[in-house]
């Protein structure tokens, strides 16, 4: 491991890569603050840039920087405007915004930055310990286990993403898998479902799909409902002064940071859970632990209430890299997009990553430390200036968001038809969001679809049929686990409902 860290340090500390981290963090913060552009959209826009860099290490470092920056930017708009740019920072606004209203916006931002820094750093340490261990196990996996593991991942995502509505999330996963079968796969060298259209020959571009699923619907929502993203505008967005917090406040934060970075990390590792659940859970846990006056302070500008979700969401973001780097299976929409970028750069994440290209693996981890440091040292003093972007009038902002969405899809493909596909899929995604269908499972299904089919086909060929399910106990075990993950939530919901009905009858 020490050797790996050294390789990573030399790669990450080159001038070029340091610049990448700084640039990534700044761009991420800048765009992450805007309503309507979450980390997923920003990373999707940055992918063409990353791919032109050519060097996978630099590209991944840039994208990881953008990711961290975007989350930090999201917290900033949560604190200053009570308008979270990302679901993962909603819990930040519970205590951050009241603090800003009290005139302590600067302090709130510092606390958020320190908490994010600690969460991210502790998360990265945990990642350094767990990822290599998990990779060693994963090296024993065959295609049959991979197939089963992906099925587990997809069911877990459906089970967590569609809280209480697993069938809807599963439907989206299957739609994603179906979309992935369009085009000429590497496996069969034969175009499928292209309906004779040349533009579909190479399949649907995942950047287009990502833009259509996330950036475009969010922009449409902003257009439809001006109240969105504008709540409290001008409320606390004025002056940001006094970036310091007191020693007592610092002391109160330490145990919170310690607990939440570990908890957040492990929630992040689970597929489908991610930063949003981690931050809400972190907030709830800390509020329950706090006693007396401390507890009453939650929601009114509590230091602990701000530090908890901030630590947890950053630790979870780091945790979500574990399945991506060790198994090659993304656990969240954002890591799914990162996976797509890596594949475009000819790097296949998975257990072989550590063995074949250790410099990529370790440079990414080291750059996480550097990225967190950059956010703390460089971004924090710049925040009052960056926050000016929040005062851009909506009439200018929305056309630009739409334009960047279009550009993101266009640059990667240089094909104007792609833009028409983007608009079509975007309208579809907006309608799906009206009906409360989760969209992350669709994207993850789409990205895993090809790999799932490849591994399925390979195991079928090796065992001349479906025998691999019975002959490999681990595969069978994983598939059973997948079935339980899907069936358990609906079973429990049904039991809870029956019990509730029983109570109602008894009245």
């Amino acid at each position, binding site marked *: 491991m020490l050797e790996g860290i050294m390789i990573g340090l030399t790669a990450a500390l080159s001038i070029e890569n340091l610049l990448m981290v700084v640039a990534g963090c700044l761009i991420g913060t800048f765009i992450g603050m805007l309503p309507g552009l979450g980390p997923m959209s920003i990373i999707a826009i940055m992918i063409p840039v990353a791919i032109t860099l050519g060097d996978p290490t630099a590209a991944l470092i840039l994208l990881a920087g953008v990711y961290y920056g975007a989350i930090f930017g999201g917290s900033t708009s949560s604190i200053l405007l009570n308008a979270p740019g990302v679901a993962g920072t909603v819990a930040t606004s519970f205590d951050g915004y009241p603090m800003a209203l009290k005139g302590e916006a600067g302090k709130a931002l510092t606390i958020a930055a320190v908490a994010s820094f600690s969460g991210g750093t502790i998360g990265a340490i945990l990642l350094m310990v767990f990822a290599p261990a998990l990779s060693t196990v994963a090296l024993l996996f065959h295609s049959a286990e991979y197939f089963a593991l992906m099925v587990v991942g997809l069911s877990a995502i459906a089970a967590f993403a569609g809280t209480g509505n697993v069938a809807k999330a599963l439907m989206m996963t*299957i739609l994603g898998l179906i979309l992935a*079968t369009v085009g000429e796969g590497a496996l069969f060298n034969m175009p499928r479902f292209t309906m004779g259209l040349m533009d579909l020959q190479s399949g649907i571009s995942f950047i287009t799909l990502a833009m259509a699923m996330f950036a475009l619907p969010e922009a449409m929502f902003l257009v439809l409902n001006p109240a969105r993203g504008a709540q409290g505008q001008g409320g606390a967005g004025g002056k940001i002064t006094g970036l310091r917090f007191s020693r007592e406040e610092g002391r109160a934060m330490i145990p919170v940071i310690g607990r939440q970075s570990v908890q957040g990390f492990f929630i992040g590792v689970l597929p489908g859970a991610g930063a949003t659940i981690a931050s809400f859970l972190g907030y709830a846990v800390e509020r329950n632990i706090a006693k007396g006056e401390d507890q009453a302070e939650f929601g009114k500008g509590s230091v602990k209430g701000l530090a908890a979700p901030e630590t947890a969401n950053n630790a979870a973001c780091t945790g979500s890299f574990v399945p991506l780097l060790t198994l090659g299976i993304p656990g969240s929409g954002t890591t799914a997009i990162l996976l797509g970028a890596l594949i475009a750069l000819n790097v296949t994440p998975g257990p072989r990553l550590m063995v074949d290209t250790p410099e990529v693996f370790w440079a990414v981890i080291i750059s996480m430390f550097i990225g967190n440091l950059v956010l703390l040292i460089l971004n924090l003093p710049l925040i009052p200036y960056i926050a000016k972007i929040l005062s851009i009038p909506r009439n*200018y902002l929305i056309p630009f968001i*739409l334009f960047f969405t279009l*550009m993101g899809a266009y640059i990667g493909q240089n094909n104007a038809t792609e833009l028409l596909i983007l608009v079509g899929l975007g*309208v579809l995604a907006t309608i799906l969001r009206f*009906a409360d269908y989760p969209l992350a499972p669709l994207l993850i299904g789409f990205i895993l679809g090809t790999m799932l089919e490849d591994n399925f086909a390979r195991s079928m060929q090796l065992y001349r049929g479906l025998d691999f399910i019975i002959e490999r106990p681990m595969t069978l075990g994983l598939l059973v686990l997948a079935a339980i993950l899907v069936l358990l939530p609906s079973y429990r919901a049904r039991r809870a409902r029956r019990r509730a009905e029983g109570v109602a009858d008894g009245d």
Partner: protein
Amino acid sequence: MALDRWIALVFVVFCCVYGYAAFFTMDQLLPPFMQRNPVWPSTFPKVLSILGVAVGLIVLLGLEGSTKEKELTASDINYRRLTEYKLGQAILLLGLMVAYALALRPLGFLFSTTAFLVAGSAVLGERKWLTMLIVSAIAAGCVWYLVQEVLGIFLRPLPFFMGN
């Protein structure tokens, strides 16, 4: 019937069409040597179409049990009252995006982008034409420079009749 069930219905129909294509139209094209394989190009789509129909029916028939409607906050959108929102603006912007896609090649990047940004702001109700024009033109120029010169991705800047 609520919107989510309509979507499920459409999805089931879509899966049936997809399944039809997988079951009845793909295998004839298969070269004989591939027919000896245990997996055909149509295998995975066949499985998916069956799963899709099953899951779609669960949502359509509400077998999972109806979950209570999520409470909407001020920033959420209630699709039942869609016409009370700025629907016209949204549709016009979508139209603009389509127009942009069609104009990008023939009219060149600089002109189409400037026009798109100005028209977009205008749709949203902005009327300071000069500011809009200057901001859009500068933005289009900067993005073109970054993409073409820095990233090295070709973007035709000018309309087709003015050369490259």
